[in-house]
């Protein structure tokens, strides 16, 4: 069954009456029962977010030398921030992080869109193909990292073996032990894991493109590219924004693939913010610096978050408007 015609007002707010605008407290009281519905979610979120955020911000103003316990930390104001912004590695890692996020997100989106378009038409075996293409997204990132590490292995890796057997190379190439190729190699793994997500999202989006419009375009003699660009793609705008933002945030925060495959090496070439913070905190016991680093990272991602919230929240407004 499909419920296509939505008559609910914007934001589904039937209780809103324009006649009288009571005070906030009064409205809160009137709606007190409503809060019960969201209470569990809010409580869980508060537990898991509020204290850690406070803790991290507080800690970022302290020095935590290796010979002292964390509770004996020394207040140093903004020195940790200065240390981070002055270190060359930070900028190197920042560049890596942006390359990682932008390229991974972009490639996953484009490949996902391609697959969604190809699978949009009905043909025999379509369901099977879609099922196969989804698998990389579902399997464990830990498992995926080990599989690809084995595929890239400099001594026994299958890609290297194929290249050598075909005579393209005379010695096994070095994918993840090489500063120039390591990031690209990891991005391939990441895209492998993420494109199916884009595919599912966009496939769902494609189903909402009205057939009449496409048929009308065809009657007008529009080519495939033309009807895609002028009819289909504009309809995918909302879902595209949501997909890209979800992927970008996930990529900024992704840890497993890099950590398991290279640990950020060689020579920091595959470190991204997250793995670098982890190393500073757990590997080097610089809790204060790691906390300040986290705050910087949070501020940067928050600015992205502004668009994220607008993108996700936007669907709500657009939905009401149409």
């Amino acid at each position, binding site marked *: 069954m499909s419920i296509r015609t939505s008559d609910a007002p914007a934001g589904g707010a039937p209780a809103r009456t324009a006649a009288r605008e009571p005070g906030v407290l009064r409205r809160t009281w009137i709606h007190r029962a409503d809060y019960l519905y969201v209470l569990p979610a809010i409580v869980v979120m508060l537990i898991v977010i509020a204290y850690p955020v406070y803790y991290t911000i507080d800690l970022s103003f302290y020095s935590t030398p290796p010979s002292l316990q964390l509770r004996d930390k020394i207040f140093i104001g903004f020195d940790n921030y200065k240390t981070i912004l002055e270190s060359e590695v930070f900028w190197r890692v920042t560049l890596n992080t942006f390359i990682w996020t932008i390229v991974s997100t972009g490639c996953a989106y484009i490949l996902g869109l391609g697959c969604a378009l190809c699978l949009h038409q009905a043909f025999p075996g379509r369901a099977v193909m879609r099922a196969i293409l989804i*698998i990389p997204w579902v399997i464990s990132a830990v498992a*995926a990292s080990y599989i690809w590490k084995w595929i890239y292995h400099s001594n026994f890796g299958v890609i290297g073996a194929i290249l050598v057997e075909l005579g393209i190379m005379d010695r096994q190439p070095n994918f993840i032990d090489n500063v120039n190729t390591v990031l690209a190699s990891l991005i391939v793994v990441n895209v492998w894991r993420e494109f199916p997500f884009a595919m599912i999202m966009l496939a769902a989006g494609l189903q909402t493109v009205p057939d009449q419009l496409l048929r009308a375009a065809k009657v007008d003699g529009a080519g495939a590219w033309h009807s895609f660009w002028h009819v289909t793609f504009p309809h995918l705008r909302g879902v595209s924004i949501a997909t890209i933002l979800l992927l970008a945030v996930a990529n900024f925060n992704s840890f497993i693939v890099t950590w398991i495959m290279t640990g950020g090496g060689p020579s920091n070439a595959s470190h991204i913010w997250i793995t670098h913070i982890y190393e500073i905190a757990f590997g080097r016991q610089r809790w204060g610096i790691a906390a300040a680093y986290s705050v910087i990272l949070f501020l940067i991602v928050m600015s992205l978050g502004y668009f994220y919230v607008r993108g996700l929240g936007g669907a709500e407004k657009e939905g009401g408007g149409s």
Partner: protein
Amino acid sequence: MTDAVTPRSRAGIDLWRWAGRIFLTVMLLFTLLPMVWMLLTSFKSGFAALQFPPQWWPKEPTLASYRKLLDPTNSVGADFLRFFWNSLFVSTMSTILSVIVAVPAAYAFSRFDFPGRKFLFFSVLLRNMFPAVVFLVPLFILMRLLGLMNTHGSLILTYLTFGLPLAIWLLKGFYDNIPYQLEQAARIDGASRFQAFLLIVMPLSVPGIIATAIYSFIGAWNEYIFAYTFINRNDRLTLPIGIQRFFSESSSDFPGLMAASFMMSVPVVVLFLMLQRYFVRALTEGAVKH
């Protein structure tokens, strides 16, 4: 979808169709080959995996790695099966709880107009903006205060919050598209608002709930870093951490690792393939609908 093709543009369409087929083939290979290689390696013996050039097809295929992992009488098998069970328990529990928490919240965000609705909705969505690593130490301390250290409870509570933002967003989109009149009709018939929600809206949102559940389950099944930090007891480890045990200091067993990776992926893949149509439907009818 109908393929009504006018003769005029047949050549153009064919070109696109061929391009599509080639692209799809390439993508299928890209997706499948790593997994095929994983399977082939898992059927090799320890030494056979360590040859260069590799054995493209295992010369002496063996199920030894699988037998080792699934045999509860040896230590590896016993560990693997216990980790498997732990993962299953943690993932199932956090999935159930996240549905219980997300459904009413999404419904309220969709239907009610209490003050702070927008603010709370967005702050829930913001959870995803925080990188997990930042939270490790403070959450560890918090789990200790809550008495949850070294328990599956600590993982369930944490995983619950991963799935929630997307779950609430997805379900809210779903509820936005369920006509309010259906509820009104029920309430005229004498149902309370909660009853209307339970009897009318919930059943209609089953695809959304299933999608939410799949998403939570996959996230919990695959989570690594919190499990790594919170659990110190061997008998409570989950699979992603557990399979690292096959790589202790002294030796690398690639076929064993590949077999473990394969078996670790089976439950989520099967679950997803069984339920994927709900997932797509939930997205179509809920989140991405215009």
